[in-house]
């Protein structure tokens, strides 16, 4: 008993033991005592835990959160290979962004019609309301999109990036950044961006928020320097041929930034990855979705919707997640094999013959204890 007391009274040592526990046990043990609660909830512990488990369990695939209807969500846990319902503790949440374990939600109360923005950790279920920046300079402006910047391996703090119009020009934009460390907003402007930029799909990668145009052109806002620039040299001729007639979308997974180009008619997908030096795309994968074995189809000729790409630590694990014929399926690029993640045809929300999920319905997240 003597040593148990010694350990329990020695926070550094207790932390060392707790760091080796999985998230689920840690959340449970928050109620052992006030001291345990404080230790497990601290940003310091959260960061140590994330770093440790990223290093020691590199092959843990991310979880996937799916929006089945405007306010119904399911999450896919790859460890147990099942979909489970996920209930947010808010009324009509809209999932705006997901970034390395934290979510950005918009919730509106039906009575007051007030819209709240929340940062939410789906694992600890903690949330924090973010009040948007407001002063005389952004009166009469429109919010075009919010993004989330969070990398627990770099910092336990996150940033919310708000892109909005300026009051004097339709083509000039301002960017406000909220820092969770200081709980303050900083404003940058004025920036010029093409009108068809997908403002609401800002993707965080390497300390920058990236926005894409349907042409494949990429713009990035550097959070460190407050600059907004076009990624030069990012679009060689070889990509331009693909971009014409494709749906373009931007996805980050496990430290890699991807541009996915889907030729819907031809059911041909190419996945381009940004080089680590940020100078240009290279063709990472391509998939002919006509090759989905007929055994997976309920009726032939059905449409496919691409949901997400999940990058594992090694090439063998990299998977395309797509929706096809009442199923959520995976395609492993390395082995070129298809498999069913989940068959939705027995689920109550299944609607025969229709595509129920699109690329804006899937959000990857990882388990972290990150405080909000």
């Amino acid at each position, binding site marked *: 008993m003597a040593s148990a*007391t010694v*350990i329990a009274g020695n926070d550094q040592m207790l932390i*060392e*033991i707790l760091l080796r*526990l*999985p998230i689920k*046990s840690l959340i449970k043990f928050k*109620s*052992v*005592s006030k001291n345990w609660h404080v230790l497990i909830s601290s940003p310091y512990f959260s960061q140590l835990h994330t770093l440790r488990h990223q290093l020691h369990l590199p092959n843990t695939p991310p979880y996937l959160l799916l929006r089945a209807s405007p306010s119904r969500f399911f999450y896919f846990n790859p460890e147990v290979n099942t979909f489970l319902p996920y209930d947010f503790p808010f009324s009509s949440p809209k999932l705006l962004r997901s970034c390395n374990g934290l979510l950005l939600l918009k919730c509106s109360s039906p009575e007051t019609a007030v819209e709240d923005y929340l940062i939410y950790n789906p694992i600890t279920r903690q949330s924090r309301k973010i009040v948007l920046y407001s002063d005389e300079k952004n009166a009469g402006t429109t919010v075009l999109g919010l993004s989330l910047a969070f990398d627990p391996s770099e910092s336990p703090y996150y940033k919310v990036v708000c892109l909005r119009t300026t009051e004097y020009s339709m083509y000039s934009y301002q960017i406000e950044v909220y820092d969770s460390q200081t709980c303050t907003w900083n404003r940058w402007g004025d920036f010029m961006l093409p009108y068809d930029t997908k403002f609401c799909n800002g993707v965080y990668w390497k300390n920058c928020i990236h926005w894409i145009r349907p042409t494949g052109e990429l713009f990035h806002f550097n959070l460190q320097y407050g600059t907004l620039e076009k990624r030069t040299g990012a679009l060689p001729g070889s990509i331009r041929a693909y971009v014409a007639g494709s749906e373009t979308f931007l996805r980050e997974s496990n430290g890699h930034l991807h541009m996915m180009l889907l030729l819907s008619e031809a059911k041909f997908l190419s996945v381009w990855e940004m080089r680590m030096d940020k100078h240009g795309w290279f063709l990472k994968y391509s998939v002919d979705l006509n090759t989905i074995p007929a055994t997976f189809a309920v009726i032939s000729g059905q449409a496919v919707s691409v949901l997400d790409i999940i990058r594992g630590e090694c090439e063998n694990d990299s998977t395309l997640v797509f929706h096809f014929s009442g199923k959520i399926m995976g395609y492993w690029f390395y082995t070129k094999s298809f498999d069913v993640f989940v068959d939705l045809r027995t689920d109550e929300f299944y609607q025969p013959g229709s595509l129920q999920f699109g690329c804006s319905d899937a959000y990857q997240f990882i388990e972290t204890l990150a405080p909000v």
Partner: protein
Amino acid sequence: MSSSTELTEKKVFLLKSLDGVIFEVEESVAVQLEVIRELIEGDCARPFISLYNVTSEILALVIEYCKHHAETCSGGTSATIADEDLKTFDNEFMNVDENILLELCSAADYLDIKSLFELTCRTLASLIKDRTIIEVRKMFNVENDFSVVEEKAVRKEFAWAFK
């Protein structure tokens, strides 16, 4: 104290436990206790080193651990065989009563033996992973200082962790 005969012999050190028991260990074992490394290197380890936080029962185990690790590492076997051997030894070594395990962890921390500290922390973590809150409180001798209302609020937050 340096005579020519002593140079050829193995250096030994005396470690004294909290309850006054003296253990004789070879240098290869003693240097694994980072906390006394400076004393050894500075030749200040005479006549014996007092280890005030470790009982003889635990110190005997610690020495057994260090001895095996020192012998395996210098035994001239290939690295993979040595690794396998250490793994088997570590597994068996951790097969002790949990109070002993807690004391070993505490001792490894105090004596600054990194591999043993890692081993005991890892073993303790896997031991408590699936335990209930009440079991963990009892094991670590922690008092529940939440009020009923506070505890209810905290439990609500992690309700899903029991699913």
